[in-house]
């Protein structure tokens, strides 16, 4: 079992450019999470999906961030345009059921915006 897969692992872009991150959760896991982790901080939830439905996107900055989870499996998180302050690690996690189930994290994508 590969666990949660994320790509790319690292991304360097210039400000105002678009960027996209991809996540493949553990097979059979219905709930998928995207977290933002700034340097020296714990992860902060951006969005939670249950199957295809975004059930909590209250922390997602909708002016520049968007996400989708087609067919209730893979998910993509996009930033357009990126700003310097978006430099962080973006973590994807999945759980079999809802938030009370154990969350399994991916390795993360480290984004650097120049």
């Amino acid at each position, binding site marked *: 079992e590969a*666990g*949660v897969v994320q790509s790319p692992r690292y991304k360097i872009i210039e400000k105002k450019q678009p960027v996209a991150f991809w996540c493949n959760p553990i097979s059979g896991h219905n709930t998928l999470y995207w977290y933002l982790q700034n340097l*020296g*901080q*714990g*992860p*902060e*939830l951006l969005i*939670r999906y249950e199957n295809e439905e975004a059930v*909590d996107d*209250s*922390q997602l900055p909708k002016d520049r961030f968007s996400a989708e989870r087609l067919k209730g499996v893979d998910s993509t998180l996009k930033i357009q345009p990126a700003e310097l302050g978006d430099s962080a690690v973006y*973590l994807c996690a999945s759980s079999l059921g*809802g*938030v*009370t189930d*154990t*969350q*399994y*994290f*991916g*390795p*993360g994508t480290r984004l650097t915006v120049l």
Partner: protein
Amino acid sequence: AQRVTQPEKLLSVFKGAPVELKCNYSYSGSPELFWYVQYSRQRLQLLLRHISRESIKGFTADLNKGETSFHLKKPFAQEEDSAMYYCAFLKRGGSEKLVFGKGTKLTVNP
């Protein structure tokens, strides 16, 4: 505000010494608390949750409602315990989610 506080950013102990990583919470209700760990070059993973009341890798954590604490303890630290440790609680109602502390970096010296 509902949050967890990990007062120590860094903690260094010697191998074989007891270790305690502190976590205090501020939450109106019955909290569900967790400890997550991230070893070097590995992904974040669940270490233990208080409702399980189990010991993982020799670590235990007891919920103290009076002191609103959930400190992580191990009687004899090992070098392989060196990692980043995050305390978290499950926020209920409305936006249900895990809320993480800022983490404590534990270094166990030989």
